[in-house]
């Protein structure tokens, strides 16, 4: 089955991203296809490389980056949600006159159309939120 995932909460405060990660990993290991993982609302905070959890805790962001690398996953942060919350790649930083970017490896920033497209192209769009 081809599925996509929508994550609408940030890391640590909510379990949404953890559960989505476990779901995605398990589904991929079972041989299913993941069309896209889309991050919206505070979910975009899963895509900043500045996240520094205590060493004895999981690193939610790095874990997504590693999974993306292993399975060639498409991790997409919503541009409007990311701008509101201070998540930027080099292009976004330049366009908005910021002196830094913070996007984590394996993520990209794009528009909400990518979420709609994921709904159209996938057999199932699975939401992980509050």
């Amino acid at each position: 089955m081809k599925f996509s995932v929508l994550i609408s909460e940030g890391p640590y405060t909510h379990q949404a991203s953890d559960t989505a990660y476990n779901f995605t990993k398990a589904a991929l290991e079972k041989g299913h296809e993941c069309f896209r993982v889309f991050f919206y609302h505070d979910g975009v905070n899963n895509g900043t490389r500045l996240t520094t959890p205590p060493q004895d805790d999981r690193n939610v962001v790095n874990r997504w980056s590693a999974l993306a690398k292993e399975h060639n996953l498409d991790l997409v942060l919503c541009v409007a949600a990311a701008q509101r919350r201070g998540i930027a790649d080099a292009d976004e930083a330049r366009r908005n006159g910021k002196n830094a970017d913070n996007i984590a490896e394996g993520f990209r920033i794009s528009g909400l159309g990518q979420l709609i497209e994921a709904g159209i192209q996938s057999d199932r769009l699975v939401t992980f939120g509050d």
Partner: protein
Amino acid sequence: MSDVKNFFYVNRRAPYGTIYALESLEVVLIGAAFEQDVSLAFLDDGVFQLAKGQETKDIGMKNFSPTYKALGDYDVNKIYVEKESLEARGLTVDDLLPLTYEDADDDYAEKNSIKVVTAAELAQLMDQADVVLSF
């Protein structure tokens, strides 16, 4: 078009305490460009999103409720409001924004987009949807 799906947006939260309502509306507006079959449902505190007479000056936030009136122009005209949620909050359909659209199949007659439905009817509609996005 073979890949038209039924997108069903579920709005459950009050308009200003969190950003979900505003960002849900942003998805609906962007999604309208994809020519899918779109329905919106408002239930629980989500019914307050459609309340008339919203005044947000004192909380320093933008009143985005006029945007709902533009939905008809985007061919988003199936707007379901849950009866039980309205009643529990002492609201009637007269307390809601008048949302209308022009029916292209009926000489562009202006028609009401809002339909009040029971929880059971809403469950059936949700069951028929291909993609459910809950905010």
